[in-house]
């Protein structure tokens, strides 16, 4: 079963006195399989937050629909077992850290007898133990975001939706959050999180959904996305005879100085059979220091720019 299905959703807002139509999301469809960590990527204004809000029933789609845990997202019961962590922490400033967690816990139906244990567990997970009595407004933004995450960990959520949870966090908090994602993923929970930081996607996600300009650009596994930006196979060799180098260039290979300056890098296009080249190098007495698949970094793949192989910068492949 798909834990979250987005079926052709479109959201049109009316802005200003003249009610000008602004399309935030247009005909987006994708589905999340269970027990996977899926990244949600796109530049600012791509429609990620609007899509997430529609999934959480906060915004009504103009057309299309979202199914959450098998029920329409507008139905509150569909949000049982789903936790949402927003980009900005939005808390009642009159409450303390402990009261905030308790309030959230009781809203999702944690029994009164278990609230205290749950509070300790989630505050421990985000390293906020001992801050129960602090007023929320006295916490820094980073600590508030940790508290936000703590509230998201309450209960036993099957699906966790994070909207740029690491935005504006310091490196230790980012590390903590990444560790939490890994742990939650290992526990078999489904995680859907939006981010600008593609490094986070490559580090923790198995699947990815890409939005741009309110439209779906890609949905599938990170590996299949990266394969779209395959640059070929790179052999690093100590040196390459000139004649052989010329021959390889003529066959479509790219020869350049190895990135660390320790030899020569030979990049074979993805459509060529790399084993043929490996054999050719061997027959000419050239031994490989390393062999690896080269792909464009996710950033270059999605947004274009530098980071290509021997050829340097390339446009986004999507």
């Amino acid at each position, binding site marked *: 079963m798909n834990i979250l299905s987005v079926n052709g959703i479109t959201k049109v807002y009316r802005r200003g006195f003249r009610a000008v139509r602004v399309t935030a999301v247009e005909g987006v469809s994708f589905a999340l399989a269970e027990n996977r960590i899926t990244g949600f990527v796109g530049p600012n204004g791509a429609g990620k937050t609007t899509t997430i809000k529609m999934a959480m029933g906060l*915004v009504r789609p103009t057309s299309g629909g979202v199914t959450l845990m098998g029920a329409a997202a507008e139905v509150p019961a569909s949000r049982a077992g789903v936790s949402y962590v927003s980009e900005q922490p*939005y808390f009642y400033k009159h409450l303390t850290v402990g009261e905030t967690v308790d309030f959230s816990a009781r809203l999702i139906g944690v029994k009164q007898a278990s609230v205290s244990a749950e509070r300790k567990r989630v505050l421990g997970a985000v390293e906020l133990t001992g801050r129960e009595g602090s007023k929320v407004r006295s916490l820094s933004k980073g600590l508030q975001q940790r508290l936000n995450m703590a509230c998201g960990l309450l209960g036993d959520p099957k699906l966790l939706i994070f909207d740029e949870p690491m935005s504006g966090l310091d490196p230790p908090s980012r590390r903590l959050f990444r560790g939490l994602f890994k742990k939650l993923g290992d526990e078999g929970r489904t995680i859907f999180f939006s981010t600008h930081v593609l490094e986070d996607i490559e580090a923790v996600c198995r699947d990815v959904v890409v939005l741009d300009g309110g439209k779906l650009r890609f949905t599938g596994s990170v590996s299949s996305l990266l394969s779209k930006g395959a640059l070929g196979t790179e052999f690093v060799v100590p040196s390459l005879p000139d004649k052989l180098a010329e021959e390889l260039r003529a066959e479509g290979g790219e020869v350049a100085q190895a990135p660390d300056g320790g030899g020569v890098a030979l990049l074979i296009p993805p459509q060529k059979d790399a084993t043929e080249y490996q054999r050719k190098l061997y027959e000419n007495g050239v031994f490989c220091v390393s062999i690896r698949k080269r792909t464009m970094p996710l950033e270059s793949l999605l947004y274009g720019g530098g980071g290509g192989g021997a050829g340097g910068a390339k446009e986004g492949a999507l």
Partner: protein
Amino acid sequence: MRVMWLVASNTFKETVRNKVLYNILLVAAVVLLLAMSFGDLSVMSRVQVMSDFGLATMSLTGLLLAVFIGVGVLGAEIADKTVYGVLCKPVDRFQFIIGKFLGLFVTLGINFILIALVFIAAITVMTTRAPQAAIFSAVFLLMVEMSVIIAAAIMWSCFTTPTLAAIFTLSFYVAGHLNDLITLSADVQTNPFLKAVLVALHYILPNLEYFNIRTQVVFGLPIADGHVMFAALYGLLYTAVLLLISSILFERKDL
């Protein structure tokens, strides 16, 4: 029920920590104190002046509390997006609206009772007589009126900005107290279209004068049999309708 209670208790905590509440209560205390001294300057007895001033102060205090805190309690939630923390959980929006109403009503009700106790104690001390039972009915009806005003404030907050919601709530209060005039205008109106509009307005707007028995209390006039019960039911029905409209509007609102 559990969710409504949670939202109500959180709203209660939030509102009792609101400084506006204490400023309005301070103003009410000052007016009550002034009423004690005005008794000697009026042709009416001291009890009449104090009853008149006291009930008027309570009505006005209720209005100000309902407007300034009532409008903020939902408007601020939407503007500050704290509403996300509640509605992203398996919570119905109508539960949220009812919870907000109950929390606010309990806060304002407690404050109202405190003002009433001070006011009744002042009358008792100044006149060395037990206050007449009609005062309690008057205070009760003012609380019912306040529930209508709070429900109206919440309804306006569902689809407009806090500033406009405050203006609309004040207008609602004024129009509600002038409802009898609308009926009179409709009676003398010759244009059938305008007459129909005025009649419609008369039925749409609440008649808040039903909750005002100040004249009867001040001058010791009899209160019609069943009036208090009728007015309470009327207020309850109006509150329910306004909360129902609020729930429908809020259900459709993009947050």
